[in-house]
């Protein structure tokens, strides 16, 4: 058993409302969020926040810096297939995202829910025409799998989208 076990059972929560978005990972090892907001100039801003531990930090990135941060997805190819899988009673189709370096992410998405903000927060799925409810990545014969367990349309507190100041 290795370090991977500290991330096993973790939860990734995606929040979106009014053009803002946040993705948060909660695991035994760390809690971290990425916020996306749109300024008056329509430019997107990204804030990475490590929320757990004694040493917390905040990183702010412009849209260009965010693209550089995710440059491994430049030139990636998204192949849509007809394979399907059911997740949370949504019929999802399969998409295969192939990176330039040969790495592959397999995703299942539904077109019934559209959340374009998430495609900025998750550049791996920028070419997927719907909301990704399940995806997997395999490295050295071991797989990390994310599966949606709930979707909620309940109101979200404004503070959820407020990145730390300073």
């Amino acid at each position, binding site marked *: 058993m290795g370090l991977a076990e500290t991330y*096993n059972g*973790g939860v990734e*929560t995606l929040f979106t409302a009014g053009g803002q978005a946040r993705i948060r*990972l*909660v695991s035994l090892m760390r809690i971290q969020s990425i916020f996306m907001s749109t300024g008056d100039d329509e430019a997107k801003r990204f804030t990475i926040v490590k929320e757990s531990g004694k040493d917390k930090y*905040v990183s702010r990135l412009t849209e260009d810096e965010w693209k550089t941060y995710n440059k491994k997805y430049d030139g990636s190819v998204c192949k849509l297939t007809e394979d399907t899988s059911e997740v949370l009673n949504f019929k999802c189709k399969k998409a295969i995202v192939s990176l330039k370096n040969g790495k592959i992410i397999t995703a299942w998405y539904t077109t019934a829910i559209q959340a374009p903000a998430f495609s900025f927060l998750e550049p791996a799925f920028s070419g997927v025409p719907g909301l990704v409810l399940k995806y997997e990545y395999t490295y050295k014969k071991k797989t990390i799998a994310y599966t949606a367990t*709930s979707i909620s349309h309940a*109101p979200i507190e404004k503070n959820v*989208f407020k990145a*730390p100041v300073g």
Partner: protein
Amino acid sequence: MTDRQDIWHHLKDHEVIPPQEVFARLRQMLESGDAVPGLSVQPPLERLQQYAVTPPAFLGRQIELRLGIRSRFLGRARWYLSAAACLVLVVAGWMVYRSYSGRENNVAVERKVRQSAAPVANVPLPADTLLKKDTPARVLAAAGTPKDTRSAPGAKISVRPVLSIEGQTISVTDNDLLVTFTSFTYPAIPAYLTRNTDKPLKINIDQYTHLYVSKNMLSMMKQTYEVLPNGKPARKAKKMKRRLDNWKEKDQKRFDKGSGANPLDPVDLGDFIFR
């Protein structure tokens, strides 16, 4: 009178080489195997064997190598034994490798989606905002457009100070979940950390998120609380604690302080935790 070595040596001092024709005649008789008057009926070689002397070991080995009979057999046997030993080592090493790598489980992460048309302020949230599939999602429309309010202070960078586990509330130590679950002191160690179980442990973080701690992770955390009869931490406990600290250090080195790696990215995370 036979085998009198003293006489033999004395006689050797007075030996005379026989005439050439006598020597030739004697040789002829020996080779043909004819009986020689006055000599034993034993063939010459058998008689000579009475005076056989075992050669030195190094000479014996050289004779064998020269003959190539016994050494070939030994060489083949040695080769087979060496090959068999190598094969056993390779198989044993492969089995050890497979058993170790097999223990590394795949990682499962839950994914929750919270989508609303616009963020709202001052709306009291129910304790559990999880929407059941058969409940109409109309709460947002009734709330209307949120009013502009004074900017709220930035969210604090911290984990909630308290968590809820099996109905119990616990305080978070050092703003860190892993540290919290490995820092309890006797007798305050919760039962869910010391009991034997096959089920993951559910931790309620806040109204949006709960976390599951795998049974393997529970087992490791449980080990950090093993003690000796005198109450001091057992060697196994200290070793596991060091291991967890080492993992944390590696994780921070990989993902913190502008490293460029993103733990929310599946490729960055997968490449790191499975390396």
